[in-house]
């Protein structure tokens, strides 16, 4: 709802705070007439409004806001042809121009002001004696004019969806200009200061009850209702009003009917007074009572006004809104594939329309993504809220060695050309070697430097070609693994991770270049080397009850259980894993930190695996986990 009481009156007379729901441009034109003795019609009002962000500006020209009074003074002049002319006075009151501004602080609260320029003109016929050879009387018109500005302020507040409240001043600031009035000041529009209180309540859908009270003891009460019709709506309203200075108690009603759609509206409204209008009044009474309103006073006649309004919306309507964004994963640049399959952020998005919409999410992490990254679209039911996932791509060239806090911009769009909403949130981008301690993510490090590692492994195997040529083909994975391990450890030293948080993992190439690393680095390297020659590996995550965990490696010898004896006489040194084809294969555990030789590393790996994973039921109890690399 969120509209001021009695909107169908559609004027700043009842909307001093310039409240507006307009999205962009609005043009309004009113044409009407009064049903006096002779019906006169003319252009009442022309207004233009514009909304920019949370602000609304309106400007209006009101040629029809005018009231003329003609008074006979009672004095007559006998003219030269013996005819007589009664002297008269003509008072004209006009509202010429209005300007309004309002600002929407929140969806529930807005405030604003209006200023209006009035003009009053008093023409009095007088007879001026002219003294010459003989005495003449010259009939002339004395004119006095004055302009004044009225400025009022107001606030509109909608505490809940179906209630709207407003409070505004009446005649708060009154500034006169071009004043040359001396004798007619008593006829000026009376402008007592006061306040206007309004309430609009929608007890059931499609019906609003409106009430406006002026502290000068006038009020309006009525309802308006709206029904859908084709691609627009039909609205009807009826408002009755009480004016302290008019009788009867309910002085009249204001009926209106309108048709509105997205782009334009037509409203036919009128005013019907319940008592015959004062067409004559003594000037002494007028002098005492005067008028307080140009359009509605005891001398006003029934009216009919046709209003046409256009809404030119160059701003697309916001169909979806981001309520909040939750960063569910920090960015670890090494985990390239992770952000393609698991979202790094999840937004709550609300559909503001009556229809199902398809929201296309996109994001850009500043200083990280080169381009905007688009994520899969999500359908959201009318007025429903849904979770929207944001994925990202780690640039190939990202090599930052320091962690930094950046900002991620999140966009949602229901169209191709423009975003419906935008949200920004800080996000931590870790250094290139950062690791979150989850062994499953070591796989991402293993995949790096593939070409380098493949070349390295092939060179080592080529050097040992003659040895491998003498070996049974079925044993080649086992012996390749042995040769590659022994070659690596020749140059290496084990370096305990100086970082207690284990948040740094070397890429395989770095470990070779640095000739050392801790258990994570060495397991990553050995796995990468074996995988590069087609040997299947798995990381073993020994989860600690306290402190640091441990990682070592398993690899698939591809031997069947019947051939396990080819590599060992001790059946506790291997175990059987069924592959994806259902075939049993012999796997062995390697302690990669044992930088002596392969056989020793196998023994140590076996002891650790048998003790922690098997005998203590670590695998079944979740204390040990096998993370397959492929």
């Amino acid at each position, binding site marked *: 709802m969120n509209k001021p009481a009695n909107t169908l009156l559609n004027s700043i007379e009842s909307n001093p705070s310039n409240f507006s729901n307009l999205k962009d441009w609005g043009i309004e034109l009113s044409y009407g007439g009064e049903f006096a003795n002779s019906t006169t019609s003319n252009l009442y009002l022309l207004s233009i409004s514009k909304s920019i962000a949370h602000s609304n500006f309106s400007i209006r020209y009101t040629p029809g806001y005018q009231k003329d009074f003609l008074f006979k003074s009672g004095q007559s002049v006998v003219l030269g042809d013996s005819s007589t002319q009664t002297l008269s006075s003509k008072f004209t009151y006009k509202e010429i121009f209005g300007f309004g501004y309002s600002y929407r602080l929140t969806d529930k609260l807005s405030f604003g002001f209006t200023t209006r320029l009035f003009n009053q003109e008093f023409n009095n016929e007088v007879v001026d004696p002219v003294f010459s050879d003989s005495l003449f009387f010259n009939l002339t018109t004395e004119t006095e004019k004055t302009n004044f500005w009225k400025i009022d302020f107001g606030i509109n507040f909608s505490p809940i969806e179906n209630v709207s409240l407003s409070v505004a001043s009446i005649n708060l600031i009154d500034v006169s200009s071009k004043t040359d009035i001396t004798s007619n000041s008593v006829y000026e529009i009376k402008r007592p200061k006061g306040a206007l209180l309004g309430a609009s309540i929608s007890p059931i859908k499609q019906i609003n009850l409106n009430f406006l009270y002026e502290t000068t003891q006038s009020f309006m009460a009525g309802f308006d209702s709206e029904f859908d019709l084709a691609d627009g709506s039909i609205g009807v309203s009826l408002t009755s009003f009480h004016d302290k200075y008019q009788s009867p108690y309910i002085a009249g009603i204001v009926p209106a009917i309108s048709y509105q759609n997205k782009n334009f509206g037509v409203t036919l409204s009128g005013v019907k007074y319940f008592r015959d209008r004062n067409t004559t009044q003594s000037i002494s009474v007028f002098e005492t009572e005067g008028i307080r309103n140009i359009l509605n006073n005891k001398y006003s006649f029934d009216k009919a006004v046709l209003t046409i309004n256009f809404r030119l919306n160059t701003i697309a309507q916001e169909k979806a809104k981001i309520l909040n964004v939750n960063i569910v994963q920090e960015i670890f640049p090494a985990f390239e594939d992770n952000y393609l399959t698991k979202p790094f952020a999840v937004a709550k998005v609300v559909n503001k329309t009556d229809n199902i919409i398809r929201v296309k999410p996109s994001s850009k992490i500043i200083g990280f993504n080169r381009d905007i990254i688009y994520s899969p679209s999500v359908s959201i039911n009318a007025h429903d809220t849904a979770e929207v996932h944001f994925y990202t791509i780690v640039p190939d060239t990202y090599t930052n060695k320091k962690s930094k806090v950046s900002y991620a911009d999140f966009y949602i769009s229901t169209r191709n050309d423009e975003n419906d909403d935008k949200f920004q949130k800080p996000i931590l981008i870790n250094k290139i070697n950062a690791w979150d301690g989850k062994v499953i993510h070591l796989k991402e490090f293993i995949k790096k430097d593939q070409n380098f590692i493949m070349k390295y492994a092939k060179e080592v195997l080529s050097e040992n070609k003659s040895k491998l040529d003498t070996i*049974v083909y079925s*044993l080649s994975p086992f*012996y390749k693994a042995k040769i590659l391990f022994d070659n690596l450890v020749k140059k290496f030293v084990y370096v305990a991770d100086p970082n207690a948080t284990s948040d740094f993992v070397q890429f395989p190439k770095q470990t070779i270049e640095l000739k050392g690393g801790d258990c994570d680095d060495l397991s990553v390297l050995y796995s990468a080397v074996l995988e590069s020659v087609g040997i*299947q590996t798995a990381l073993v995550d020994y989860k600690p009850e306290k402190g640091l965990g441990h990682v070592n490696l398993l690899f698939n010898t591809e031997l069947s259980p019947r051939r396990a004896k080819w590599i060992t*006489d001790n059946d506790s*040194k291997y175990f059987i894993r069924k592959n994806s084809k259902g075939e049993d294969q012999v796997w062995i555990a390697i302690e990669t930190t044992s930088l002596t030789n392969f056989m020793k590393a196998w023994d140590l790996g076996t002891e650790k695996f048998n003790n922690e994973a098997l005998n203590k039921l670590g695998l*079944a109890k979740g204390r040990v986990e096998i993370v397959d690399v492929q």
Partner: protein
Amino acid sequence: MKKIFLILFIMTGFLPAQTFIVKKVKGEVKAQIGVSEKWQPVKKNAELNSQTTLMTSKNSRIVLQYGKEKIKIKNLSIISLKGIKKLTTDELLLALAMENILDVPNKKKNINNSPNTAVYGKEINGKTKAVINKNDFGKMRLNGAKQLAENGYIESAIIEAMETYRKYPDTKKLSDYRIYFANLLVKKRLYDEALTEYNKIIELKLDKNEKLQVKKQMAFLKKKLLR
């Protein structure tokens, strides 16, 4: 005071390391310690730890002192001393579940583990340097598992048998052993697991007597499971 110490021991889990003392040895008995590849002879009064695997030959046997218990191991058996420990039924179930946990996850996508195009060596018809026929080794493992059961370590016996089936797949065809260990599952009231095992056993070549026995057990288990 002694009572307090005892309670503390139990609560903190500081149990003394399992030590087995060789009380009697008859014939050739060998031991493989930990990850060693070597089998070495076992002598009377030797102290063995739980990482030891014992192997008895055709006409040999061994008696071990384990705390106050005496463990008798008959001929033609291989037994890992780590199996000589009391397990709960829950621990047995966890150990049985580990079989599946160990398996490589079945990913639908094609696993990128194509072997290296370089070929080294040649197939040599499976000739090995095995010290013992692998089928016998497996059968001796099952004998060892039976000894565990006979000495009251039924849970460990079942685990040993299941591991032996995997490591020595030919033993899966030994219907009499399969029936023996399946019956142990029934004895432990693991009816689901037992029925799964009998469903595999019924596929084997069984003699008339075995077939009858298996069918009877299967009917019994189905009845139990339907309740």
